[in-house]
């Protein structure tokens, strides 16, 4: 299974696969091949629960092809609980900023043609 396929399979289970540097301990998304901090190539897989808080987001009304039928929807950047790591994803059912204050608790719930799916907790 490719690295991206592993991310997808874990997202479908509501989990986030990450890479922890075996040399310095810095945590990355699992698409990292070398450590951002020390340049080392050794990683151990760490499976995170996929929960966090919304760091920022946008509500998209003019969508790329394939997403028109989902508008309005949110593209969100989520800060993972207890980590300095963020993950982006698609959030359905958001039409005004009042629906999604920054800091809202959220979690990964799947993966489909809309990419990584994130929902409010």
């Amino acid at each position: 299974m490719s690295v991206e396929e592993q991310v997808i399979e874990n997202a479908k289970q509501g989990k986030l696969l990450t890479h922890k540097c075996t040399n310095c301990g810095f945590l990355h998304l699992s698409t990292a091949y070398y450590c951002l901090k020390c340049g080392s190539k050794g990683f151990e897989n760490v499976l995170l629960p996929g929960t966090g808080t919304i760091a920022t987001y946008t509500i998209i009304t003019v969508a790329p092809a394939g997403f028109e039928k989902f508008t309005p929807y949110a593209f969100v950047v989520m800060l993972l609980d207890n980590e300095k790591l963020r993950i982006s994803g698609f959030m359905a059912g958001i039409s005004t900023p009042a629906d999604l204050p920054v800091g809202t608790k959220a979690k990964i719930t799947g993966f489909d043609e809309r990419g990584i799916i994130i929902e409010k907790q």
Partner: protein
Amino acid sequence: MSVLLVEKVCVLGAGSTKYGKLSDSLADITVQASVSAIDSAGIEPKDIKASYISNVFGVADKQVHIGPVLMSRLGIPDKPSLTIESACGSGSVSFREAYANIAAGFYDCLIATGVEKVTHTGTEWTTTYFAYCSDFFYEGQAGASFPGLFASMARAYLTEFDATEEDFAKVAVKNHDNGCLNPKAHMQKKITIDDVMKSPVVASPLKLYDCCPFSDGASSVILCSEKFAKEHGGDYIEVIGSGRGGSAAALQGREHLTTIPSTKIASEAAYKMAGLTAKDIDFAEVHDCFTIAEVVDTEDLGFFEKGKGVQAVREDRTKLNSDISINPSGGLKSKGHPIGATGIGQVVEVFDQLTGNAGARTVKDAKVGLTHNFGATGASCAVHIFQSV
């Protein structure tokens, strides 16, 4: 790392097509801009030793590998060319490659031309294909558009700092005011804060008038060694600083969501080479693809402290002939954003300003100008500094 420069690099000529919705082909507008740069420089095509052509979506007009087409039409098909793609930052990268080749002594005279032609494809095509410039697995695949990614930065900025959507709107109003003084600008139309606030939401909190238009257009400059410039006479300007930088491809991987690291890295390198600081810059053409971008750019370039860029806008400190004239051309917002041409178009504006050809939008007593152009959400960036001779 210090850089060994064999030759001082000058810009000897510059020209652009009008930016907007153009009916001529990609190849035609590439040649039109290039010929105007050649005429402006007072040289002949045979003086040109090679070309650097920036273009992203040539496929949309059935023409990729545009370099040899240009050289053939200029009557110099034996001269080499390189076509460069670096998303919306392609133009400044092709300028940089030409700059580096002259500085290193490989050539004494080059042409750098940028071009884009996409308006005939429509908003859905452009929205879709531009999103391919993101880190697609994480961003485009999850429905992020480019307005959406900059809107995410805008939301973070509104959350972190004392800023309002009206502050962002004021950037658009200022750039449209400047663009009205630029005969080649795409959007020569004065707008008000109210117009921006009432325009349709594209990606909250960004509205239509917070966004630059999709534009067609081509821009071209002639770069040469100082010796070549002096021999050929005519007006020229000197390139005194050149820097490049990178940022994590996806926003999620940036330490701060309201800073573009590549801008800081590129500008610090350019300032160091020029022996200048941000305070020495008289005017700047910055990458204002969205209003939030101009605010962030002016902070990352060192003109204002982080979080204070909106205050400068509020106090009219970035207007034409104020503290620092930001985007006297109208910027991407009003002049337009033909993505492969934009970085070269910025150099055309600096050339016109520093050689006294900027007409009603002239920055008074300007001696030093800066260009700042990036690709995608600033994943790649180049900054150049120029001075009058």
